């Protein structure tokens, strides 16, 4: 078990090295522009060369990458080209914002998706049609429009939540919750849509299986059959959807953070990329990959717990 986790973590580290290397190689094609943009539009070619040398961008690409990697292993991700802020603390400060939005949305997605999916699969009729309609709506309307629609309705019309801005959790928990409410709802809408249809389909399949009938002949109550047996068996595929959902939400948070002016990971990455701030881009890439690796590992471990056949011996 511990060996398995170790093996997965090592595979994850290899993946992180590969992804950051590819990103770096791709970025290296535009180092001239990047050096230029740190100086402003009036920079002369000679000045740009000088700046490249100063930033270390004139060395062979592989040397540069290995240099970055060795520093990164020791926890040093360098300084931002523009603000000279240490990348590590800058990312750590912003990751909290993004994670609180994404994790809250993931939790809400799981609750809404499983509830609607189970209801749709077992009640049929009107409940099923409403759940399917809601799920279809989440698929039909682009995430961006849902986000803007929610701002218009909940912030501008009803004044329930602020339209933009962020209050840190430590400062005021209530205002923190209010400030992430609309972003969380916007991310949940799309996530819950796919989870609902997944859970619905999986539950319908499970409830048609033989063991459900045999449990009924034992006098076991329908509630226990649904929740203790069928849902547990249906949860495996749902968890996989949820882990893909996490990756997507992490990407979706980019747009959402921009819409709601949240000082998160996504908007930070966006601005850094617009400027070509290489240390920040590399740090962000690494953190994102490691985060995804960890989430996938957690999902696989949870899957093993749910499904004895997938358990590692």
């Amino acid at each position: 078990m511990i060996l398995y986790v170790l093996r997965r973590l090592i595979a994850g580290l290899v993946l992180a090295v590969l992804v950051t290397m590819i990103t770096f190689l791709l970025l290296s094609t535009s180092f001239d522009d990047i050096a230029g943009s740190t100086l402003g539009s009036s920079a002369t070619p000679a000045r740009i060369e000088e700046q490249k040398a100063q930033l270390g961008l004139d060395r062979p690409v592989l040397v540069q990458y290995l240099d970055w990697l060795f520093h990164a292993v020791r926890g040093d991700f360098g300084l931002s080209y523009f603000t000279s802020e240490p990348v590590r603390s800058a990312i750590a400060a912003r990751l909290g914002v993004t994670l609180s939005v994404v994790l809250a949305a993931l939790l809400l997605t799981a609750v809404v998706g499983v509830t609607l999916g189970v209801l749709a699969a077992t009640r049929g009729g009107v409940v099923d049609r409403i759940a399917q309609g809601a799920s279809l709506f989440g698929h039909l309307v682009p995430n961006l429009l849902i986000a803007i629609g929610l701002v218009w309705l909940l912030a501008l019309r009803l004044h329930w939540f602020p339209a933009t801005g962020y209050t840190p959790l430590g400062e005021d928990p209530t205002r923190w919750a209010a400030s992430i409410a609309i972003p969380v709802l916007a991310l949940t809408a799309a996530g819950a849509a796919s989870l609902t249809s997944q859970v619905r389909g999986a539950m319908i399949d499970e409830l048609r299986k033989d063991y459900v009938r045999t449990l009924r002949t034992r006098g076991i109550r329908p509630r226990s059959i649904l929740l203790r047996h069928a849902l547990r068996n249906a949860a495996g595929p749902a968890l996989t959807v949820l882990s893909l959902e996490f990756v997507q939400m992490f990407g979706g948070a980019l747009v959402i953070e921009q819409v709601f002016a949240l000082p998160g990971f996504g908007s930070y990455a966006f601005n850094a990329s617009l400027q070509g701030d290489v240390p920040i881009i590399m740090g962000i890439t690494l953190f994102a990959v490691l985060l995804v690796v960890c989430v996938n590992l957690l999902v696989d471990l949870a899957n093993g717990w749910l499904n004895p056949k997938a358990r590692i011996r």
Partner: protein
Amino acid sequence: MSTAPSNATPARDQGDRHDPAEAAASRRSPLRRLLRDPQAVISAGILLVIVALGLLTPLITDHGPNQASLDAINADAGSHGYLLGGDKSGRDIFARLLSSVNTSVVAALIGTGIALAIGVAFGLIGGYYDRRLRAVTEWVFSLVMTFPGLLLLIVLLPVTNGDYRVTMMIFGVLLSPGVYRLVRNLVLSVRSELYVDAARVSGLPDRRILSRHILYTVRGPVVIATAFLAGASIGVQSGLAFLGVGPSTVPSFGAMIADGFTNFYEEPLQFLWPSLTLGVITASLVLLGNSLRDVLEGGRPEPSRITAPAPRPTTGLTTGAGSSGLLTVEDLALAYPTSSGELKEVVSGVTLSLEAGETLGLVGESGSGKTQTAFAILGVLPAEAVVTRGSVRLDGRELLGLSERELCGVRGRAVTYVPQEPMSNLDPSSTVGSQLVEGIRTTTPMSRREAGERALALLSRVGISDPRRVFASYPHQISGGMAQRVLIAGAVASRPLLLIADEPTTALDVTVQAEILDLLRDLRKELNMALLLVTHDFGVVADSCDRVAVMQQGEIVETGDVLDLFSAPRHPYTRTLLDSLLDENSARTDQPGVADESWQKEAR
């Protein structure tokens, strides 16, 4: 049958949900069926009109999408020759809207095209050729899949310079693993089909087989995926444009929405038009994709409640009188709705009776309605089944018409069930022990610990010599014979009055069959239960039953004492069944071996 309406529910008979006639109809002409589906026609029509408008932009508007005039800033609709008015920079909203359509179409073409090209090519190769190559492609694609796509697109902004065409190429690569998995799974399943084997044996080159046979099967799901891929591409392109990625001269819904958003209070319409168009386009793509899926792959499964079958209120139940037996089934009939909406009877007027402690064999060939009769007695018919008439009384109590809740008090206590296929009848993700304990605690007031001990005692009673190990095992860790013993243990846990065993030995090895039958016989005597033994095997009947009822096409054709029926069968069908028994040179080996010693043979 072939003209069945598209909204008809498929007939379900004994779990078989595929009506051959309907399947043939669906194979006939997907395109024609698609044209009859209003959702498909409307969504495809809307898309065609929008794309056509985009292509005809130069003919429709006089103004370019970036042509701004100062006096047209926030102009009203219709003024300055601007059909929908001007935006905050004085550009023609209508012209920008149409040009944005073109941007979206190009984005969708690039994203979808690249995803399909890479995904299909590698899916075909990975699915068709050997494993080593597949391992490599698999690894690369799972690597691509782990990365948050939108983040990568943003991170690579310095490389793409925000050009949406380059961005869409990368996005296509990011979408390709989904297509790859889809195609690879399809190819793997087709590869082993006989006609592909035949083509390979007859010497067709791989290239021909791939393009002829395999691409043909793959095309339906790929068409469906295309609709969703296009929707995703358009969504991402707009999202990025909304963020302000790329030159402002490229007209895009995202950029228009962003402009409109900042100008929302003054001119809400500027925000509405691009949002509406974008929403209509993506909604049409999703709806079209759903229609394609329904037509090409058959309808989505319908939910079914866990519920007791409700007898039709119009047909009054016969109130049985006189008989004093343990189980009395009178004139029981049940039916399933067919695709044309009519009811098809699968059991028509079955009458049975069983005394306490008696063993009755219910015999007939498969499809004769034996199992359906058994399920009707237990009240566990599929939700779509309809009990059209009749009565089922157990110990004097009418069971038909009871609610699921009331039946829960009867099932497991008075009547229990042993299924045909042991493996699929245990919950795969709970241990044997926890399933037994749950059953015991539902039927008898016991603490968890007492129930656990009772379960262990039951396991050793049914001939499992290592009860503790089996108690802690999951179903996939024990053999089929052991699983059947576990199910029998669960069924007799509550000392029921009646045990219904549905072909309890059919799925087992020949050597185990006799032991299971002996076990059932011993337990019946020990607990003085009645046993309803559903079987197609007269050998089993001769061994275990007191009386026998012969079923054919949903009706009981003959009932009688086992000895009488064997010596003088009256119905021709009974005679045919008996004759076939003598012909087939029965494989059953009758070794009454003691169960306790035999476990080692089946233990894996």
